[in-house]
């Protein structure tokens, strides 16, 4: 049996043209997918039972025992942290936000360590963005800044930009120019019409130089900026101003480097400047398949897109204080629930040291680095393969994820609902 048009639950591209071949409720083949999505669809290893740590050793437990223990840990906590959420669907995220409000927890997502600075910049100066469909059909210039689509979003170029046919583009190979700005000559840089190899931490300077040039103030730009020659910047500024429709995509090279959200703000302001001359848009290359979805869900429910602290009984948002890394660095949480992400692999050492020292619970289908930091892990169905629901593509377009195989594993949503119910029972017992 073959199921067509399956959305891929890996990255923010959410490619929804995947064909999955099935035999006896097992995936035997995948078509149209990139290496990353393919590896996820065909993955075999997973945790088979809930596990719990007892006297320094792991033991297998039932779902009831694991849920009971999780509810007890969260109920007893003074400063619980609920973290993750990007690898699950909106319906489960909704339950997570309700849980956070009910127990006065701080809730944050992987956004905090990827495009948090992009959100801060957008809150300062706005977001001249558009959907990927507009870019595909109209953009004659694409700029990849501080991102490497070939390795992080392998089909971005073939579905939406460089190699995609566009309705208003006669010949995509010749009529669509590509500029890459990166510290490394990545595979994307090798096919670019212009590659700006910037020195580490130099993005802000390059953006400022380009803004001056677009304003017609070339004379204020020195001969070399962050290791890049002025003549190259002039060529790039000309390409940008001559474009009919330019689209900037930026990644963590901009958000994580020195300057952080100020880099993104400068990039947005360059795009605003370019809109005085032509049409330009800017968009973040979001990582997890539903990291954008969490920002949507939390904004509907609490008014803010990430790092919301419910400890005061109201939604309080102050990134830098209520963001997950700062909270862990201050060693504040006395319990932590991790859902659909792996902070053990992706957080700085000092912060995971604190996670290992408090009762931490993980809801995830696979054994991962965070498993070692936990007291309890509850395995669940693989979202987008074994359970359906809503995810948001990197440009904010909601897409219905499909269930392609049957499973006996419960979904994230079911487990979270059972934890909420159990906490209410414990509280009503006094």
């Amino acid at each position, binding site marked *: 049996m073959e199921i067509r048009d399956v959305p891929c639950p*890996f990255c923010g591209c959410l490619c929804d043209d995947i064909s999955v071949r099935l035999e006896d409720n097992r995936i035997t083949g995948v078509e149209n997918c990139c*290496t*990353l999505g393919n*590896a*996820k669809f065909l993955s075999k*290893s997973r945790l088979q039972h809930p*596990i719990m*740590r007892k006297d*320094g050793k*792991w033991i297998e437990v039932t779902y009831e025992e694991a849920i009971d223990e999780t509810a007890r840990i969260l109920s007893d906590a003074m400063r619980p942290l609920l973290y993750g959420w990007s690898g699950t669907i909106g319906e489960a995220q909704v339950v997570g936000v309700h849980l956070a409000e009910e127990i006065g927890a701080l809730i944050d997502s992987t956004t*905090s*360590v990827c495009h*948090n*600075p992009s959100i801060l910049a957008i809150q300062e100066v706005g977001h001249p963005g558009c959907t990927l469909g507009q870019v595909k059909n109209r953009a004659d210039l694409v700029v990849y800044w501080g991102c490497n689509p*070939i*390795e*992080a979003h*392998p089909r971005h170029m073939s579905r939406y930009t460089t190699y995609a046919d566009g309705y208003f583009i006669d010949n995509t190979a010749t009529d669509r120019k590509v500029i890459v700005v990166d*510290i*490394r*000559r990545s595979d994307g840089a090798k096919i670019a019409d212009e590659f700006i190899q910037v*020195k*580490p*931490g130099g993005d802000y300077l390059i953006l400022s130089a380009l803004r001056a040039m677009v304003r017609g103030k070339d004379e204020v730009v020195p001969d070399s900026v962050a290791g890049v020659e002025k003549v190259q910047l002039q060529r790039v500024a000309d390409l940008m101003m001559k474009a009919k429709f330019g689209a900037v995509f930026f990644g*963590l*090279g901009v*958000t*994580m*480097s*020195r300057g*952080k*959200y100020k880099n993104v703000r400068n990039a947005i302001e360059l795009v605003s400047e370019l809109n005085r001359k032509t049409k330009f848009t800017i968009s973040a290359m979001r990582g997890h398949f539903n990291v954008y979805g969490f920002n949507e869900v939390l904004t509907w429910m609490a008014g803010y897109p990430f*790092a919301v602290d419910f400890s005061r009984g109201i939604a309080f948002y102050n*990134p*830098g*204080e209520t*963001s997950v*890394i*700062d909270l862990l*660095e201050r060693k504040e949480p006395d319990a932590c629930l991790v859902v659909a992400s*792996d902070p*053990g*692999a*992706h*957080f*700085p*050492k*000092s*912060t*995971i*040291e604190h996670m*290992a*020292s408090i009762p931490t619970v993980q809801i995830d289908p*696979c*054994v991962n*680095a965070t*498993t*070692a*930091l936990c007291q309890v*892990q509850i395995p669940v169905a693989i979202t987008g393969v074994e359970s359906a629901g809503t995810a948001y593509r990197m440009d904010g377009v909601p897409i219905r994820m499909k269930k392609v195989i049957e499973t006996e594993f419960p979904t994230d949503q079911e487990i979270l609902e059972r934890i909420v119910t159990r906490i209410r029972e414990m509280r009503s017992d006094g």
Partner: protein
Amino acid sequence: MTFILISGRTIPQGSFVEHKLSKGYQRATSTLFIHSLDLYELGIESGDRVNVTSSFGSVVLTTETTEDIQTGCVYIALGPYANAITGGYTHATGMPDYKDIIVEIEPTEDPVPTVWDLMEMVGGVRYGN
């Protein structure tokens, strides 16, 4: 020798992301990409191991030569190895300095730790093997 370390995504890192305890993931995230001239300066060859130290910690990585980054910079896939030498300070932005970390690099014969080893160093307990 002093270098600037940058972390980021690579295809092998992403392919093994659901198998974090596999040898493939360990290899993908413990490889340090370094310019061939810098390898020469260190007096070692591609594939030799180095000890990488920042103000926040130290980790053993395996080198791999590349011409795609400038001398003085080194590159590693994101993951537990990069994070063993990343600090948790965020400049009040919520975002730690995952890129542009100043590191000292010196050759070593020490083995590359496993992901479980790294998790046990912070107080975790390995599951299974």
